[in-house]
């Protein structure tokens, strides 16, 4: 049943009633709300994150974390050439380094001392307090005290301690933590989801299939807070007893929780794309003498590959942005370590945990919104990638097939 397109619209030539026009206009306008919302989300999350720019040229020592002094410094920084770390601004100069380029090669020891070794520092890299209105730009040694760090240095450091007398906003442990849990989740979730999809699509007896599929899809209906609770109560114990790990809540428990959340996503999309491979493929393969499993793995799976890739990508996106499971099952300690059995803290969980207590308008608040911008951009990219790249592949593949 194809919807009626305007190409066949019989009213094209007829003079339309004014009510018709109003109706169509309203419907069109409402439809644009979805587009509007995407822009609004980006704009307003960015807008709240924007306050960061006011802090960029200052060290955190002269700024209490409770953004009371926020207003004055905002005005002060508007004319300074503060580097814009998040793009999309009028005042950004083209040669200003991006935030995550880590052009500044710095080694930060545990005590917090900063040794800058890079020669090419950002221009407005100004490690001094604003009171001095320091103009020396290329200081080799940033400053006397380890407390006097610029925000860029602070953000790229490896300690996340937003609530302390000397707040540290090192994003590295959060990014690493997110990467670890997402990696574990995909490592567990992708094979399970894909294998389960192959089983239900090709091998399962009809009766079993009719029970299995809805039950697995039911898994998608579990609210993430319930999955988080499940991990907190059972998976954590299971992991601790099985692997004998030191910390009850760690990256593996969080990863398993995220895997539970993404398995039904991967399963459903993979199953759909397996089923949408033309029947003739399977029949041809079987007619040529291939067995069922050869057909499944060597003909059907490769044919459905774009869909499988899409499924895994969407799984990554979901695991990356999942909040409640990460909040409940990862232990929530921003430990900067490669170990899989230590507690971690993800970007999304950080927002979820700290947004409730943060003082609105403070630097901490701005940084949490900046994390939100990061999450949005990553999920947006993943979505765009799936949309344009994978769907294009799928369309091309079956153009001659059906």
């Amino acid at each position, binding site marked *: *049943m194809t919807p009626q397109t305007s190409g066949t619209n019989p009213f094209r030539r007829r003079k339309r009633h004014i009510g018709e026009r109003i109706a169509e206009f309203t*419907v069109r306008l409402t439809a644009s709300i979805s587009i509007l919302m995407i822009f609004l*989300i980006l704009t307003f999350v960015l807008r709240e994150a924007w306050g960061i720019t006011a802090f960029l040229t200052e060290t955190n020592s002269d700024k209490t974390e409770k953004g009371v002094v926020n207003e004055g410094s905002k005005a002060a920084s508007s004319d300074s050439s503060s580097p814009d770390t998040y793009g999309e601004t009028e005042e950004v100069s083209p040669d200003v380094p991006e935030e995550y380029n880590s052009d500044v090669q710095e080694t930060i020891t545990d005590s917090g001392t900063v040794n800058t070794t890079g020669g090419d520092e950002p221009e407005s890299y100004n490690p001094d307090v604003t009171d001095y209105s320091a103009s020396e730009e290329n200081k080799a040694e940033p400053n006397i005290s380890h407390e006097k760090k610029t925000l860029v240095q602070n953000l790229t450091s490896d300690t996340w301690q937003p609530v302390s007398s000397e707040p540290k906003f090192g994003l590295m442990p959060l990014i690493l933590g997110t990467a670890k849990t997402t990696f574990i989740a995909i490592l567990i979730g992708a094979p399970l989801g894909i294998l389960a999809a192959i089983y239900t699509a090709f091998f399962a007896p009809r009766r079993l299939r009719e029970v299995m599929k809805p039950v*697995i899809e039911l898994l998608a209906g579990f609210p993430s807070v319930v999955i988080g609770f*499940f991990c907190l109560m059972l998976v954590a114990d299971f992991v601790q007893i099985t692997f004998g790990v030191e910390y009850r809540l760690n990256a593996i428990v969080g990863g398993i929780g995220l895997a539970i959340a993404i398995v039904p996503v991967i399963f459903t999309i993979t199953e759909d794309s397996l089923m949408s491979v033309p029947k003739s493929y399977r029949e041809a393969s079987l007619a040529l003498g291939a067995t069922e499993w050869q057909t499944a793995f060597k003909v059907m799976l490769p044919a459905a590959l774009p869909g499988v890739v899409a499924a895994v990508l969407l799984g990554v996106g979901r695991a990356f942005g999942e909040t409640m499971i990460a909040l409940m099952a990862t232990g929530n300690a921003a430990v900067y370590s490669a170990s899989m059995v230590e507690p971690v803290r993800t970007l999304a969980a950080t927002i979820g945990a700290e947004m409730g207590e943060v003082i609105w308008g403070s630097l901490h608040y701005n940084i949490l919104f900046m994390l939100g911008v990061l999450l949005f951009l990553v999920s*947006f990219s993943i979505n*765009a990638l799936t949309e344009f790249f994978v769907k294009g592949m799928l369309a091309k593949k079956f153009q001659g097939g059906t």
Partner: protein
Amino acid sequence: MTPLRHHRTTRSEFQKKVLGFFAVGITVVGGFIVFGTAMFMLLHFLIKGLPHISWEFLSQAPRNNNTEGGIFPAIYGTTFLVLTMALLGVPVGTATALYLTEYAKQQSFFAKSVRFAVNTLAGVPSIVFGLFGVGFFIQFVGGGIDSLAGMEGGAVFGHPALIWASATLSILTLPVVIVSVEEALKAVPRELREASLALGATKWQTIWKIVLPNSLTGILTGSILAVGRGAGEVAPIIFVGAVYSLPELPTGVTDQFMHLGYHLFVLATQSPDVDAVAPQQYATTVVLLMLTFGLNFTATIIRSRIRKKRLG
């Protein structure tokens, strides 16, 4: 080896069988691990939680550090929240679906953009919606209304409140509504539209009198699915209006509210005495699951009926 034979078929029958056994075997294992996890979670919560559900639990407020009493305020808050959400989101979602199926030229840039936007919305992490709720609804819209009315910032609208949580959730669930309603609209036979148009009805008359009434169940399905999804989402509302305890029930849309999912989160992570709250935790989980699964189940039944109608 005959020249026609491909070199890869030189595996012996035995090797093939072993390989086949393992290939099928791992899919069986994968399938049953996933299936088993789902069943285990469901049964685990039902067995642990159901015995603790009583009328008292459903109808009373929590007492004594959440170890006694019930979760009535959370049930009430969740219901209030999702109904307001549906009220805000369903009309927008329905209109968008109407545009996509009835008005849009499928290849037009605008239609493609709308589709892309809907897909993108579905993929935005839920916590980002929460930030959006704070930045846009509470501070910009709410604060704006307050200052327009000449009140101190945050007096009536410019603070976390049920209306903003509902609005945030309605955007989050918009894709769910749009996809379901679109499916229902497409299920309305083309002949019905053509008959109506042939009788001289205008396009809008056709939509209003023929298409929409015929897809009413589909719109209902979409709303139910959205409500089911919205009821389970916690991350977007933590700082947009949900609170962990309330002296009295919310009476208006500018009040704060308790929420089942958030209540479970608080019980699970912020209780001093874990053992004492365990029954409450499991019982709350079961109520939350019954709410979301009940709604999903209803929607699935309605949907399968629509599909049958469409095929028949």
